[in-house]
């Protein structure tokens, strides 16, 4: 056992940190978009930054060199992910989805042409894909999706509706799951496609999220014709590809690192703020609360480290990722709630209030953290996975 990073890894961390210090635009820091708070303005800044990161090879560092990656070790990836999240670098969630789920699926299942067309562009930061999975009646039960893709000549014609499609209005392509065989059992007739979001027949309707921002959308497909080569992997085997993609490394390390930063800011606030003549940091209840947050976050971090370590040993975590995701989601909610208690009335203030503290990050987290245990597989579904896949408990 050895919990130390190697010297080489430590040098790498410093290099990343140094680079981020120079490259994160001031404007981004001012806009300070939290989770699900991207605007077109911040999105544009983020895309510029992502290209820079791509040029460094740090956007998709683990990809094979032929597709623009550096074949970086899992531990260095971990370090990079930590530093990016801790520094609040301009990376939208869709980039993570694109880099960590979509492109690796293409590497695994795509044709040579698809790999050439998409994977290197992803690694360069040139394209972003949105996820077209959920439908009004297919949330946790994703396999019951109804959007149809029918083969006609050398095209597929798509009809149906997707929902909760995050940043669908800003993404270049959609990574779409559609039903290609309506007669087969529900897991058997699904296929995956890459669809250009500018294709005629696609209508996007904004959904305003709880932070009063436009992050997700309903996407309607109305006789949308796409070339046959848009199919990824095997026809009707999309479900199995999709499940494997869900097991790809989930970046709960990013959440843990971002949350670490927030806890540190709370600690700073507690030290600098006096109430009834005493620093908040002297209040035993507040000390206890902050210490507990630090404990929980360290537990979350070790769970994420374990996943990176498993990958580095050639193992494939599955329920271990679920544990890590469920746990960090609850730590983040706890941090938001505890932060609110520590800040008291000040925690309620939104950004443009003159008395707001910590740039209203706590009140925004109170809202945004609600999504962490829901999107991308709810905590209940993750717990089912831990119980059944992880512990072998019976289904019935």
């Amino acid at each position, binding site marked *: 056992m050895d919990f130390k990073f190697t010297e080489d890894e430590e040098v790498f961390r410093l290099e990343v940190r140094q680079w981020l210090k120079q490259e994160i635009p001031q404007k981004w820091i001012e806009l300070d978009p939290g989770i699900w708070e991207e605007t077109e303005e911040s999105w544009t800044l983020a895309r510029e930054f992502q290209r820079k990161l791509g040029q460094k090879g740090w956007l998709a560092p683990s990809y094979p060199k032929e597709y623009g990656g550096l074949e970086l070790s899992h531990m260095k990836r971990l370090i990079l992910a930590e530093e990016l999240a801790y520094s609040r670098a301009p990376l939208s969630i869709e980039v993570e989805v694109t880099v960590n789920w979509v492109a690796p699926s293409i590497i695994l299942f795509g044709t040579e042409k698809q790999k050439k067309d998409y994977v290197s562009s992803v690694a360069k930061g040139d394209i972003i894909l949105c996820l077209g999975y959920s439908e009004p009646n297919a949330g*946790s*039960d994703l396999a019951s999706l109804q959007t149809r893709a029918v083969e006609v000549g050398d095209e597929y014609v798509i009809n149906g509706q997707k929902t909760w499609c995050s940043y669908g209005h800003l993404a270049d392509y959609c990574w779409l799951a559609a039903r290609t065989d309506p007669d087969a059992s529900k897991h058997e007739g699904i296929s995956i496609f890459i669809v250009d979001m500018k294709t005629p027949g696609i209508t996007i309707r904004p959904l305003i999220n*709880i932070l009063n921002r436009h992050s997700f959308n309903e996407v309607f497909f109305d006789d949308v014709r796409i070339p046959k080569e848009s199919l990824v992997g095997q026809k009707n085997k999309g479900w199995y590809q999709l499940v494997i993609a869900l097991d790809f490394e989930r970046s709960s390390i990013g959440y843990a690192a971002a949350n670490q930063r927030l806890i540190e800011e709370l600690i700073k606030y507690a030290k600098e703020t006096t109430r009834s003549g005493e620093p908040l940091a002297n209040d035993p209840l507040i000390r206890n609360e902050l210490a507990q947050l630090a404990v929980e976050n360290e537990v979350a971090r070790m769970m994420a480290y374990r996943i990176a370590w498993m990958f580095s040993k050639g193992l494939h975590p599955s329920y271990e990722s679920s544990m890590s995701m469920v746990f960090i989601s609850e730590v983040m909610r706890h941090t938001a*709630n505890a932060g609110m208690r520590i800040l008291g009335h000040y925690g309620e203030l939104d950004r443009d*209030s003159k008395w707001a503290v910590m740039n209203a990050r706590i009140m925004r987290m109170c809202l945004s953290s609600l999504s962490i245990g829901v999107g991308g597989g*709810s905590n209940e579904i993750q717990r089912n996975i831990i119980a059944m896949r992880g512990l072998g408990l019976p289904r019935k």
Partner: protein
Amino acid sequence: MDLGLSEEQEMLKKLARDFLQKECPKRLVRQLDESDQGYSSELWHKMAELGWMGLVFPEKYGGSERNFLDLTILLEEMGYNIVPGPFFSTVVLGGLTVLTAGSEEQKMEFLPKIASGEMILSLALTEPTASYDAASVKTKAIAHNGKYVIKGTKLFVLNANVADYILCVARTKQAKNPENGITLFLVDAKSPGVKCTLLKTLARDKQCEVVFDNVTVSEKSIVGERDGGWPIVKDVLQKATVAKCAEMVGGTQAALDMAVNYAKERVQFGRPIGSFQAIQHYCANMATDVSGSRFVTYKAAWKVSEGLPAALDVAIAKAWASEAYGRITLSAHQIFGAIGFTMDHDIHLYYRQAKAAEIIFGDADFQRAIVARELGL
């Protein structure tokens, strides 16, 4: 012993439920949340016509002489529906203060106008320390030629932006014990030197910064005794805390009802999600929390209503309800999944309320400290 509502209370509850459902739909709630004013004068006057503003005032002041417990039943329903506006400020924080501590002249002047919906009040107590203790009252009122000049900054003042009068808690004398030397003034909100700025908050309730920049008021505007204001504040805070708990109980009930209904309707994997034990357990825990909050709140409200010592029970109710409301709305969000993460859905309105209610008049830690003290620790 009787833990149930009287027939009259049941009627009040039902009337309030039906009226608010019809007259204060969530469409209006959202609209008011987004507006600067934060209340609808049409709804306000209808509520006044129903006698809600004067519910607990004696008849001679235009009231209907019901008791405090009745008021909490009404507030529970207001919490169930969510009714944006200055009812709480005007009736609980302002009206009850004037009723308990005001002079006959003040009662005659203010209470009938409150009861008829003509007057809106606000209580300016908290300051930049954001806490509810006497030592935090730094705003000064200095006697000058038979008048008083008020100077200081009040923060997190509810509904001051629409108030006709602001009850300002100010220090008139420096004393060793910070509870001495505090005086309450009824300040015309239009007085020169009163500057009110709306603060944008999570619950989109209308909290304000109110700056008193050398505001001159007459001696007649003092409520209660000069330098003897703190016991009045303590009394109103106790009532307000129970009243807030009642609102919270209503909110928890609404969140539970919404979540349970959805769990019955929403189908995934070919069955209602409410048939999954994970969801059933959430609902069961929520129901338990609602019930727990309700009866400790009723007990505290009953004690206050009967004029019995209630410090322990009030603190227990707020300590419990503060955290229960948060837990319940969080579970509700979990049950709603992505749809609950939208602005269009109603559940976040309750989640936001829960956060504000948790903090106001002291959070659970603050209340537990009172409980410990009351237990002789």
